[in-house]
């Protein structure tokens, strides 16, 4: 269950008050009458769908009914930030990677799912087999 901070109500509320509405910051083609099938198809159907940091649109549907943005990690589901419509995120995949490089911490891959699949676990595997 998410506990979501609504930037308009300025309160944390439970997930059930909200509805996810997909990827944020989608730009509608400026001149839809004259865009190619490729551009229009890309705009309608193709999404980032990242395994990692995702900026997404949510609506506080049974609260203030306003739309706002959430930056969330799609593998561990951590909500990193919520911000109002029209604002830009202060946390992105790039800023996170830069922070981690600075502090000397290895960037979390977020993608490893299987125990023993990490290359650095090879020693463990060998040990277990021996």
């Amino acid at each position, binding site marked *: *269950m*998410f506990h979501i901070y609504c930037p308009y109500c300025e309160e944390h509320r439970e*997930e*059930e008050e909200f*509805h*996810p509405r*997909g*990827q944020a910051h989608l730009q509608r083609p400026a001149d839809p009458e004259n865009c190619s*099938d*490729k551009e*229009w*198809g*890309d705009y*309608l*159907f*193709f*999404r*980032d*769908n*990242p*395994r990692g940091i*995702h900026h*997404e649109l949510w609506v506080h549907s049974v609260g203030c009914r306003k739309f706002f943005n959430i930056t*969330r990690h*799609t*593998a*561990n*589901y951590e909500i990193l930030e919520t911000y109002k419509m029209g604002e830009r995120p202060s946390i992105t995949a790039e800023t996170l990677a830069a922070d981690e490089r600075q502090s000397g911490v290895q960037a979390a891959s977020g*993608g*490893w*799912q*299987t125990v*023993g*699949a*990490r*290359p650095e676990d090879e020693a463990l595997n060998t040990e277990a087999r021996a």
Partner: protein
Amino acid sequence: MQRYSGFGLVKHALNHHENWQRQWRNPTPKKQYDIVIVGGGGHGLATAYYLAKVHNITNVAVIEKGWLGGGNTARNTTIVRSNYLWDEAAALFEHSMKLWEGLSQDINYNVMFSQRGVLNLGHTLQDMRDIQRRVNANRLNGIDGEVLDAKGVQEIVPILDCSSRARYPVLGASWQPRGGVARHDAVAWGYARAADALGVDLLQNTEVTGFKIRDGRVYGVHTNRGDIEAKTVGCVAAGNSGVLAKMAGFKLPLESHPLQALVSEPLKPVLDTVVMSNHVHGYISQSDKGDLVIGAGIDGYVGYGQRGSYPTVEHTLQAIVEMFPIFSRVRMNRQWGGIVDTCPDASPILSATPVKGMFFNCGWGTGGFKATPGSGHVFAATLAKGEAHPLAAPFSIDRFHTGALVDEHGAAGVAH
């Protein structure tokens, strides 16, 4: 491969079942294969099996980052049906249904395919009109189907609340008698064993970390166990398809969502068919072990976590209790989530990609299990010939730019 038979069972009983052959080898990756399949779930293993059996291509590797059939193959509600509305989808799923009907014999593995029938309930006049349209379309395509009224539904499922007291009274249903359920793990294991026997290498705990691409053409994959070369690569990675596409440098029109299911404590036989409802949004069957197998909708947000949210569990069980008041005190045993790759038109993608030699079989969304044999069969043909099988052709990625969508939200959107 040691064939399984009743006689074999008796023979092994004499040895206290201690000398059964391993179902598949655990080979060391070779440097080079003709075809590499990324993803060792049901669809990937079926693809490998039909490549070896139908197309005689046995220098094939299936690369799986975890264990075989550990993703959505192990996480679905095992429902099999083919009552899709549009000709393209109906042809593909009916092709699959026909393969299901002979599958246990074909791969010498009991997949426990049980044609106990599938009911899709209608609760509104519009539901009933849609059901009539879909059943008529099915019959024109040679797929069995009947429209039942509430009385007919009640006769098949006496414990379903078909009274007018229900908040969403059952007005009728579509009934596909050839639909049913199968044992999901057995499907993966059976295909794995049969493919292995034909010489396919099944590489578990091997994770693809990148693709080797030169001049817009794939010639191998990077893995955590070294590089493997192959001129043709087929990706069958369900929820992680988008991640693979990103490695290869293009986007897919997919969003990955958690879809969860639950099983109850085992009960005495009480429900001998599959009941699905789009309107109250839930579906249920009873396994041979006695557990009620229950599912409903996806979580609305993008997620790769293989777990679902509690509000969705609540909505699922509300729907089940609305239909079956008798189950109101049944306790749930386990709950889990799988990552489904949903397509904007609720139809799959079986397609070539901007990278030559690389093919994707994905976008099955919430309803991939039923298609396992058919998907593998047509994708194997696509990989073997380098061009789409006629049944796969309408499911190309191009449709999201040409507009030739196969809109199956009615038949696939909720009912999986």
